């Protein structure tokens, strides 16, 4: 495996040459500061670009072309990386060794067509593709509650710290969508092409030189890369007294969400110790939460904790019966207290470290994971794989306890199920 970073005036190209995969994976990332009003613009942009192009004016024609390109896969997504917003456009296709000559160029050209030759008229993006993209986003914004888990998580963050990068909704907001028009979206597209920082990641059995030529030919970037600040964010306010919030929903199962702020953690703590602490608390079926709340007390089926080092928080979620709220809450908080008081075994730290190292090894088997790894090095100044393996070894009992002391319970959000069991659905059994 060989990594090349080629720094061009308009973009950075990262090529990971490896013969491990039969596919070639390409990701073009656009990065800028995360601004609330722009979230819907970025989501609309991805939707519109993937709906049609000048050469393939409908989604159906694009899809037929991808089948002709031996099932080329393509997709776009937006996500928040701390204080920044990253829009990624991906293409994955078979190495031409397994298809036919010329397919490497044609596949690169297809993603280039999506990016640089959208379907436009004098008023901006073409009406039909724009309408479809817009309806799809509107419907999505309307139906957030249909996924109770992600809805409850989103609400927890909003209660923890409203209107900051910690809690902006990834899908954006209806009031901002009202401001989007075909023309404004097209102007935004031009702005992105001019101002965003662009990083292109390519992994597969390809030569960096060859990729560089194809990118120059099909991706006429005029962006100007700028120096980026740190992505890391720390909430400005914490709730001195724990905030309790409850919302009712038509659900059989209630969702209990607990949010903690991590105050003034060091870089090492956020990147390494937090990972181990989270694993011990609720990161595996052998964790304290899983064993004590689920296995010993049968209070839930799903329970886990997760850490978001970029915004310095730790969250816990469980699906429970509404009437068991008090018991579940007490038991969960007891597990967190146990970690603060050092009530865990050294073996648990060892397990966490082994799991961390093994999951890094498994990364090497997956092209997308490898790209994420290198993106982390580029954006977050993350350590390389070799250094991560060395540093995770340094996490010990004292460091876990010290970090636990910085974790402060902030908000408890309860999405309370109001539907009585058995009143409908399978009455006919």
């Amino acid at each position: 495996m060989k990594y090349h970073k080629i720094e061009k005036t308009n973009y950075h190209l990262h090529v990971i040459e490896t013969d491990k995969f039969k596919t070639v994976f390409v990701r073009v990332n656009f990065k800028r500061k995360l601004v609330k009003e722009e979230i819907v613009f970025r989501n609309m942009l991805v939707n519109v670009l993937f709906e049609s192009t000048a050469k393939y004016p409908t989604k159906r024609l694009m899809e037929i072309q991808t089948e002709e390109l031996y099932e080329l896969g393509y997709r776009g997504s937006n996500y928040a990386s701390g204080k920044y917003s990253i829009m990624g456009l991906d293409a994955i296709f078979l190495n031409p060794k397994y298809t036919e000559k010329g397919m490497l160029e044609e596949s690169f050209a297809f993603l280039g067509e999506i990016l640089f030759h959208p379907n436009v008229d004098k008023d901006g993006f073409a009406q039909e593709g724009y309408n479809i993209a817009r309806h799809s986003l509107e419907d999505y914004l309307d139906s957030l509650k249909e996924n109770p888990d992600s809805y409850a998580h989103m609400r927890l963050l909003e209660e923890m710290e409203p209107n900051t990068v910690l809690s902006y909704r990834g899908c954006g907001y209806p009031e901002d969508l009202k401001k989007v028009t075909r023309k404004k979206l097209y102007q935004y597209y031009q702005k992105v092409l001019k101002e965003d920082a662009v990083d292109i990641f390519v992994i597969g059995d390809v030569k960096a030189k060859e990729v560089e030529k194809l990118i120059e030919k099909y991706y006429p970037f005029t962006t100007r890369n700028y120096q980026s600040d740190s992505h890391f964010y720390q909430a400005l306010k914490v709730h001195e007294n724990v905030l309790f919030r409850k919302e009712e929903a038509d659900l059989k199962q209630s969702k209990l969400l607990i949010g903690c702020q991590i105050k003034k953690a060091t870089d090492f703590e956020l990147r390494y110790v937090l990972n181990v602490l989270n694993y011990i608390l609720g990161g595996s079926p052998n964790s304290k939460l899983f064993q004590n709340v689920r296995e010993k007390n049968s209070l839930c089926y799903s329970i886990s904790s997760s850490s978001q080092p970029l915004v310095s928080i730790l969250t816990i979620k469980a699906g429970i019966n509404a009437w068991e709220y008090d018991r579940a809450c007490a038991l969960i908080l007891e597990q967190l207290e146990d970690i603060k008081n050092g009530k865990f075994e050294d073996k648990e730290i060892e397990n966490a470290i082994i799991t961390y190292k093994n999951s890094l090894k498994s990364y090497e088997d997956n092209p997308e994971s490898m790209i994420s790894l290198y993106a982390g090095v580029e954006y977050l100044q993350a350590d390389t794989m070799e250094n991560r393996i060395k540093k995770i070894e340094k996490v010990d009992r004292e460091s876990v306890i010290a970090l636990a002391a910085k974790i402060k319970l902030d908000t408890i959000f309860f999405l309370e199920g109001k539907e009585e069991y058995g009143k409908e659905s399978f009455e006919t059994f």
Partner: protein
Amino acid sequence: MEKNHLKHFDLDLYQETLPNGLLVNIIPKPGNNVYATFVTKYGSFDNVFVPQGKKKSYEAPMGVAHFLEHKVFEQKDGEDPFAFYTKNGADANASTSYLRTCYLFSGPEHVEENIEYLLDFVQNPYFTDENVEKEKGIIEQEIKMYDDIPYWKLYEKNLFNTFLKHPLRYPIAGTVESISKITKEDLYTCYDTFYHPSNMFLTVVGNVNPDTVMDCVRKNQAKKNYEKRGPIIRKEVEEPDRVFKKQEEIVGDVEIPKLSVAYKINAQDMDKNRLRNYLSFFFDLRFGSTSLLRERLKRENAITGGFSIDIMEAGKHILCMVSVDSKKPEYVLEEMNKEISDKTITALEVERKKKTLKSACIYQSDSVYSICDHVNSNLLHYGSIFLDEYSWIDSFCLEEAEEMISKITFEHQSSVILKRK
């Protein structure tokens, strides 16, 4: 140990059936990770059967196969299999479908030890009245979690309305009520019948040496006493072609209504495996991302997202299910039925679908998970692993597609619409 080349994956397959009947499949693949699955051909379909050593048939409570999947992790010495795998830096899990129950782990280290432990814990579980009771609360929450997902609710209702007797009618995990009646004795009855090595197979894919893995499995199995068994007698139900309920509207807290349609097709006198593939082509052409109907309904803002298509086998029937989010579900249903009445397929379309199927094999061959799932699915559906899937794909042709599709009828259908109160 037999060695064969899997042409479509460009990998070797090593196979052996052990004296106790266990089939072992090993596919070495360069890379770091190893993925192993230990599968019993026992899922929620197998609800009526003659238990081992008995003469009369027994009807299991709904949800037993899945309940058993949870309880197989219970060990007499109290060791938790999850703790074992965590210690070795591996992930363990299990799942139950209509056709099979699968126990698995993945992880790059301690491979032989992990494989042996997989065999040991699955082959030696320990059920008590107490640990069975304890699991009920956990599974109750699992069932409720799925019940709260609108698509899940729609899907289960659609299956319930399509069948009259076949177990596909009922949820894999059962209901809160049905699992409350499950006892330790039920678990042992099902376990003793279906967890005999002759009804199971082990598949290992990844960075392994086939000789050492096979040797380790052979030795492990030789230590255990399994008596020779005859075939398991499963009771087939007589399922009519008609559906239980043609149309129904149910309520739920959804912003955009959802439609699910199930076409129940009698495939008794046809080659079901081939028909299933042709139906998959046909439904993809009618409703998939390259279909004209999808394009038109999107333009009319009648559907959100796309159609999802699911093709399943249930006894003598093949079931084609199509679901979609729609603000005009009644209209979309009408348009779907118009579209499906046109049975034309072109040679070009068949060739394009064949190309995508072949490409899919190459994509799969990059992932230990996809390879393993694919060969396991071969075993469950076809009884053996395809050595050359390309030639199987090449055997599909327009003439046969037209002939098979022209013979079937879409008249037996059930549709469910999920709407806000």
